């Protein structure tokens, strides 16, 4: 029963905030939205406890019957029904826990905004949709949550809708993810056609059964499963901003910073990872697709790392960093390291939320300055924020002992000998780790060391509540790696099959551990001019480089331009060229033809006798002529 009520606390809060809107004072709106989240956290803690003592570690609750579908054999029910197991438990802890902290932060951070209650309402609605997404027991309900979070993301990116650029960023995010969603929807259709079911657990069992019979799945079924996995992957890359649908995420930073922390770092963008982990039963039967997942992850990881190196906006650095970290998760999933991927999802949620929120605090302190090249020397000016940011960065770089270390090492350790990954992808992951530490250092040097490149006095928010949320997140980031995560029951025995017998060289682990330090060392010298005060008397002004290569990287390696030329422009052209509807014009030709005759005949009927006589005579001559011939 408790499980059924979980999404309703934020839902009630959402309704209250929307109905009463601006009539609510800041206090009241903040109390309603934050306390609803507190209640959600409380309930999920109880649920986690109940789950851990329950027998098979699964809880389900049926809310109501949604609709029926008929398949070849029988009727299959699609219900509004929640399903809680180890995997969704991890997700709800992240969503409610991090969600609660971010709500609390946002309540203070957004205090001055005139539309405060609308903001909190959207945040609440987002939590509702996200909870439905992770708790859904069937794919249609999951799709409901999936679209719901997309809508909230759209609303929150465009929260400051008066700015044209924000509106466009919101539109882009929605449409690009919608392309992924459409692929996912087609995947669902094919899935229903193959298995006659939308229930995830049933589909997983059916897929396993098909695989377990002696002959293996029939060729047609295997082919279907391949396509299902591929199409679902399409949905996942859209939501999780992976290649080739990654372009919306950097622009999504137009939203308020708590939104970037909650939606575009900690929770929604990891929905793709969740989807693949949830459907692992299907993906395991399509090793080729797992291989694609790994490669897409690896490529995104590198691409985003390179792009992050060239950014000038602090939030965009973090956005690319999110993309690349999700790339790690995808890589893990592709390699079959399910638990490690989910583990990284969790730790990433902690430290990336911390990074974003601290960045928000910094941006706020600098009067909405987001440009790294207009920062500098914040270490002295904002010691509290700086130290927390450092905590976030060392987790991101995965320095030993931090949560990021545990999860990232867990991923890297399984890559080399995986069937669907291998040494090459292992090297990609290492290279990615190197890039991560380099762009982290660059960010740190630019923002916190060197000389102050701003003139206004900083004003830092000293609210204890706000600071304590940051401290809690920092603690989670540091020690979250110690949370025991046992997902062996979720990821069934199937993935424990013996891996390829590749001998792992003994130096693998040492390399993986050393890599971030190499990156730091490299940056220490390479970005020297960023971190040191200028020598007196010399010209020493730091400017972002505007060489072609850097600009190319800054713009996300040209994907925007490519899609613009390949898709957006042709569609707009097509729309413009056929604005007046060719079919209509063809049909209206009839009308034109009729009125042409009308005009012509009107000319003839002019009432003058001479004209009639002449026409009469001419006609007689013509007729005679014809008959003689």
């Amino acid at each position, binding site marked *: 029963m408790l499980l059924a009520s979980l999404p309703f606390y934020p839902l009630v809060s959402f309704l209250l905030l929307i109905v009463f809107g*601006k009539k609510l004072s800041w206090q009241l709106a903040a109390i309603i939205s934050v306390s609803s989240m507190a209640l959600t956290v409380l309930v999920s803690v109880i649920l986690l406890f109940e789950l851990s003592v329950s027998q098979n570690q699964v809880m389900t609750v049926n809310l109501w*019957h949604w609709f029926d579908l008929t398949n070849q054999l029988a009727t299959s029910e699609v219900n509004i029904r929640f399903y809680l197991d180890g995997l969704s438990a991890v997700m709800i802890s992240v969503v409610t826990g991090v969600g609660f902290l971010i709500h609390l932060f946002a309540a203070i951070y957004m205090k001055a905004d005139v539309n405060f209650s609308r903001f909190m309402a959207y945040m609440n609605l987002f939590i509702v949709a996200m909870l439905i997404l992770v708790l859904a027991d069937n794919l249609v309900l999951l799709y*409901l949550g999936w*679209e719901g979070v997309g809508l909230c993301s759209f609303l929150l990116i465009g929260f400051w*809708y008066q700015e044209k650029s924000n509106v466009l960023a*919101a539109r882009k995010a929605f*449409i690009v993810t919608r392309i992924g969603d*459409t692929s996912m929807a087609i995947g669902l*259709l094919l899935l229903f056609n193959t298995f006659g079911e939308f229930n995830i657990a049933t589909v997983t069992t059916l897929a396993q059964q098909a695989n377990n019979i002696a002959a293996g799945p029939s060729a047609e079924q295997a082919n279907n499963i391949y396509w299902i996995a591929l199409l679902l992957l399409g949905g996942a890359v859209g939501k999780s901003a992976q290649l080739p649908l990654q372009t919306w995420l950097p622009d999504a930073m137009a939203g308020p910073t708590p939104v970037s922390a909650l939606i575009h770092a900690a929770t929604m963008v990891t929905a793709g990872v969740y989807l693949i982990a949830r459907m692992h039963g299907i993906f395991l039967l399509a090793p080729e697709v797992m291989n694609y997942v790994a490669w897409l992850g690896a490529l995104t990881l590198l691409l985003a790392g390179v792009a992050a190196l060239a950014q000038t906006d602090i939030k965009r650095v973090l956005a690319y960093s999110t993309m690349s970290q999700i790339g790690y998760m995808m890589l893990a999933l592709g390699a079959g390291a399910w638990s490690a991927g989910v583990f990284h999802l969790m730790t990433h949620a902690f430290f990336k939320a911390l990074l974003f929120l601290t960045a928000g605090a910094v941006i706020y302190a600098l009067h909405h300055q987001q440009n790294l090249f207009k920062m500098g020397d914040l270490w002295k000016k904002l010691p509290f924020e700086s130290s927390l940011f450092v905590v976030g960065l060392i987790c991101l770089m995965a320095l030993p002992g931090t949560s990021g270390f545990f999860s990232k090492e867990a991923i890297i350790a399984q890559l080399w000998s995986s069937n669907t990954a291998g040494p090459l992808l292992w090297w990609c992951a290492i290279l990615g780790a190197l890039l991560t530490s380099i762009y982290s250092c660059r960010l740190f040097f630019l923002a916190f060391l060197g000389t102050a490149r701003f003139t206004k006095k900083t004003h830092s928010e000293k609210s204890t509540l706000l600071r304590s949320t940051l401290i809690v997140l920092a603690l989670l980031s540091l020690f979250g790696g110690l949370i025991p995560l046992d997902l062996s029951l979720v990821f069934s025995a199937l993935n424990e099959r013996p891996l390829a017998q590749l001998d792992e060289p003994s130096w693998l682990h040492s390399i993986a551990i050393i890599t971030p330090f190499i990156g730091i060392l490299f940056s220490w010298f390479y970005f020297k001019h960023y971190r040191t005060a200028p020598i007196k008397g010399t010209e020493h002004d730091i400017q972002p480089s505007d060489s072609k290569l850097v600009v190319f990287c800054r713009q996300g390696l040209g994907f925007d331009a490519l899609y613009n030329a390949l898709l957006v422009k042709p569609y707009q052209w097509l729309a413009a060229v056929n604005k007046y509807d060719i079919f209509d014009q063809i049909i209206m030709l009839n009308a034109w033809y009729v009125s042409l005759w009308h005009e012509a005949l009107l000319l003839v009927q002019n009432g003058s006798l001479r004209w009639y006589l002449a026409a009469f005579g001419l006609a007689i001559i013509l007729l005679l002529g014809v008959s003689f011939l």
Partner: protein
Amino acid sequence: MTLTVIMLALLMAGALAWRTEKYWQGSAKWLALISLALLATVFAVFVMSHEIKPNDGFAHLQVLSRVDWIKTFNIQYSIAIDQLSIVLIALTWLLGIICVLVSWHEIQRHVGFYYFNLLLTIAGIIGVFVAVDMFLFFFFWEVMLLPMTAIIAIWGHEKRQFAALKFFIFTQVSSLLMLVAIIATGYFHLLQTGQLSFYYLDWLLLDIPLEISQYLMLGFFIAFAVKLPSVPVHSWLPDAHTQAPTAGSVLLAGVLLKTGAYGLIRFVIFLFPQASEQFAPIAATLAVVSIVYGAKMAFAQQDFKRLVAYSSISHMGFVMLALFAFNSNAYQGAIVTMVAHGLSSAALFAMAGMIYQRIHSRDLADMGGFWQSAPRMGGFALAFAGAAFGLPGLANFIGEFVSLVGVFQVMPEFAIIAAFGLIGSAIYGMVLFQSSFQGTPKRDIIDLQSRELIICGSLLLTLLAIGLYPTLLLKFSFGV
């Protein structure tokens, strides 16, 4: 009997409204509203009381009355209903009431005559949904058409006469084909059984050879495809919808288009199952072209109402595609889509009317940033746009998803192309919502008033109810 009385009562209420408006200004709208509400209740009670009886229920067509009309040709006044017509009539009542509410302040000229036309159209629509004598059906088909044309031509926008004429000619030409098909089928009945008959239930028993039924089917199909509308005979719709007064657009999009879908189900697919099955690839092709082309055209529009009009073409494409899949999932999806589209497009047209009343323009370029001054309106506009682009939780999603599931089982290629309509709908939905309610505020407008809140609220609640609990609707339409 009751249904006949309801239709007559609508006609009389209309005539009364026309008269009384001359003496008491402002009485016509109240009269229309009260009579619609009252008759809707009568209808509901009638259906409920019939439901309880153990032997019938409306899974199959229930003949309600059957009297001779023109004896020489064996033409009868015969009406019957089943679940399909009940659902569509219920939709008609709801939207009829909405129509009166949206016209409340909008109609200032010839008020009495306007409500006469409105009620007459509604009576005609109900007649179309219940007639089972084909001649009677044709009669109602025309009854519904004439006052609608008048509504567009008299109370419409700047190019109303052109639009009304276009609407009239399109539907007349196509219904002429239907008339030919009706007479031919009646004559065929004479050949086969020795008696002329236009009675639908008689026709169902006919055994028509495929070569003939192909052509007969085509006659009906074209009439209904124009009404639906399907590409390439859709082009009356953007003009008619754009130029019609708000209530006209609501009624057109909400119910009149559904008569096309209704006709496809009842008279094309049921009367000529074999011929339709043979025709399915062509119909499905037209349907997916409508889906994609409608969505693309909607994106190109600058006029709020024109955009919504093209989106209707796209949505009705889903209905036609689903119907020609001959699959029970798809059929249910089609019914839900019909109702859902009736509600959501009506809502969007009502929204267009509300904006027009405030800024006297339908041009998206004149809009922008309304959210600032009218947040409630913005919220509703977003929800209705969301319904249009198939946001799960609202009725349209159920309709489209279930029909796509069904279509995929039969003809996957078509379902995949149709799914691209999802992207197209997101694009025009975004354009519609963002260019009117987001962006730099161009001007301040008044937020929704209580009457408008009732309109938007009731439509949204119905959309949500069907979206979250479609059993409400689906338990009605299993009768196939």
